[in-house]
Structures are given as structure tokens and as C-alpha cells.
């Protein structure tokens, strides 16, 4: 059986595979001896099925602090929510 992470990387790097239909991609995965879970994920369009193979690890996305909080100097031991202080407004700039 082929390694799923390696196959994902190959698909991501291949112009034909990245934009192939699910049916075309499943054919490729059958030839590549991909896992049943991987083939099912592609066939159904449910990539979350891959969690069956790798386990589910919830991931958080927000990497920005929200406007106005950047300059707030909080006590490192104090997690209590604090209101925004508009006088310290230094909002992050999306680039």
C-alpha cells in the first residue's frame, strides 16, 4: 500500500492530478495502491475521512490577536479577558 502523505504531496505537485475529476483520481489511486480510506475520501469529496487513517486532531486557525490587543501588556499569569483599549490601537495589517 502506498503512503498517503506521499500521494497527497504528489497530487499537490502535479497539474494534471491536482485538477483531475474524482473519478480520474480514484483510478490513479487504485493503480498506486492507495489506502481504501484515501480512495473513499476522494470518491466522496469528504477529505475528513482521512482522519480515520491518521486520527482526528482538532486544529485552531486564528494566528492574529484581534485589533487593539497587540499593545496590551497583560500579566503573564492573568488570563482574565480584558476590554480593548482604543488608545492602544495598533491593529495588525493584512499583507
Amino acid at each position, binding site marked *: 500500500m502506498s503512503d498517503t*502523505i*506521499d500521494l*497527497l*504531496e*504528489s*497530487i*499537490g*505537485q502535479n497539474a494534471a*492530478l*491536482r485538477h483531475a475529476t474524482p473519478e480520474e*483520481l480514484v483510478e490513479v489511486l487504485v493503480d498506486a495502491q492507495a489506502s481504501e480510506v484515501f480512495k473513499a*475520501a*476522494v470518491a466522496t*469529496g469528504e*477529505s475528513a475521512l*482521512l*482522519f480515520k487513517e*491518521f*486520527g*482526528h*486532531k482538532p*486544529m*485552531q*486557525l*486564528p*494566528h*492574529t*490577536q*484581534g*485589533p*487593539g*490587543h*497587540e499593545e*496590551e501588556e*497583560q500579566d*503573564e499569569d492573568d*488570563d482574565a*479577558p480584558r*476590554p*480593548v483599549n*482604543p488608545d492602544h*490601537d495598533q*491593529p*495588525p495589517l*493584512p*499583507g
Partner: protein
Amino acid sequence: MLTPDSLPTNHARRGSLACVGLGMTLGSHLTPLARSHIEQADVVFAGLSDSIVELWLGRMHTDVRSLQPYYAEGKSRMKTYRQWVDLIMAEVRAGKKVCGVFYGHPGIFAWSPHKAIEVARAEGFKAHMEPGISAEDCLYADLGIDPGRFGCQHFEASQLLFYERRIDPTSYLVLWQVGLVGDLSLARFETGSAYRQVLVDVLSEDYPLDHEVIIYRGATLPIDQPRIRHVRLSDLPNTPITTEETVVLPPAMALKQNLAIRARLKALDEETAMA
């Protein structure tokens, strides 16, 4: 062929920091230079959006340390991000070549990479950022938007609620992190319908309630397609929105010519032609 071993080593080993972006889609967006930073690092810290992408990164280096465990419901994200900077800087100070890897672009909506680089440089260490393909880049491609056509404003959605901002409804408006809009605490990972209603109330000062809104999410895995939904502005509060989704409002009004400035420019043209 040049290798890292080709570089002279007649100087004391010093810690260094490179913050790189992994791009948005596994396998598709990682630049050769970013991969090189990862492979040549002593320690890699990972702030990524997807656990499978994190596994992929683990194939590139034997010492990848996830930053995800430092998040916690009820804990200020500001504290989490300061911890990230401390973790990164501890290794830089220990003389390690450190690579911070973040999803998308490491400098967009990402406080810690900018801060870590600032701190490292202030302490005399080499530190820099390598750009990556961001969610914004993918958005333009997937939605067919050229920001040069009508202009494009970007806001972290909460800024529109916390501050008095000027929206230009003749341009595109892109709102990031709508799933968290109005969160003053920084300790939640989503707010909800009532908070989005406040956002809609603010937006309704510049847009009709039946204005089309696009809810967009780019592909993280190469077997995924972008997720694109169209709803009316008035339906936004009751439309579930995740943290990773972005809201786009197309222009609501046509561009209006600035006749006074055009006349002034024409006069300048004539003066220049006569000179």
C-alpha cells in the same frame, strides 16, 4: 553543486530564525526556499491549520514541534502567541538555527512570526521572513477577483465593530475571521449569530441587506476544492461560518469620477505640453 557545507564556518555558531509560509494547499504551494529553510534548520516550530499538513511537515524534518497544544478554550490567544515567541526565542538563544513554519503566509494575520523576528533582531540574531502563498492569494484566483479593478479593502472583521472604520462600497470588501467577529476576550474560537448580526447592522450602513455576500474557504488538501457560498447580507447571521472562512462583499456602487481632479490633471497635461 552548492550545499550548506560549502559555506565558511570560521565564525562562532549563532542562533538564527527564519519564519516561512507553507502556503495553503499541501504539496502545491511550498517554495523551494521555504523547504530549504525547513530542511536546514536545527529545530522547526509549526503553526499550521491542518493535522495532515502537520504530518507532511514532519516528513521534512525530524524535530517538528507543534504550536497547537498552546491554544486552549478560555485562554487568551495573546498569551498563547507570547508563549510561541518565548519557545522560538529560547532555541535561538541556545544557538540553534530555528525555522518557524506557518500556514499560508507567515506574516499575514500572524502576530508571533513578526514579533519573534523583531525580538531576535533586537537581540542581535539573524532573523527574516520568507513569504508564502496566502489565503488572500487563493481567494483572488478562486473567486476571479482582481483587486486592481475596483480596489479591495481588507479588515479583520472585529475591527469594523471595535473601531470607526471607513468602508468604500465602490471597492471589494474582504472580511477575515468573521467566525470570531466581536470577540473581545480573545479566549473563544467562535462567536455566533448575534455577533454576526451586529456586523450586518454595521455593514448595512453601506450596503443594502439584499447585497450578495460570498463566503469563501480555500483548499487545504490537494484533493479538496475551494468552498464558495453565496448568500444575502441579511442571511449572514444565520449562516454558519467557520474560523477559516472569509467573507467577501462585491462592490455595491459604481466608481464615481472625480471631475475636479481630472480637470486639474488635464490642465497639467496642457501646461506640460506647452513647456
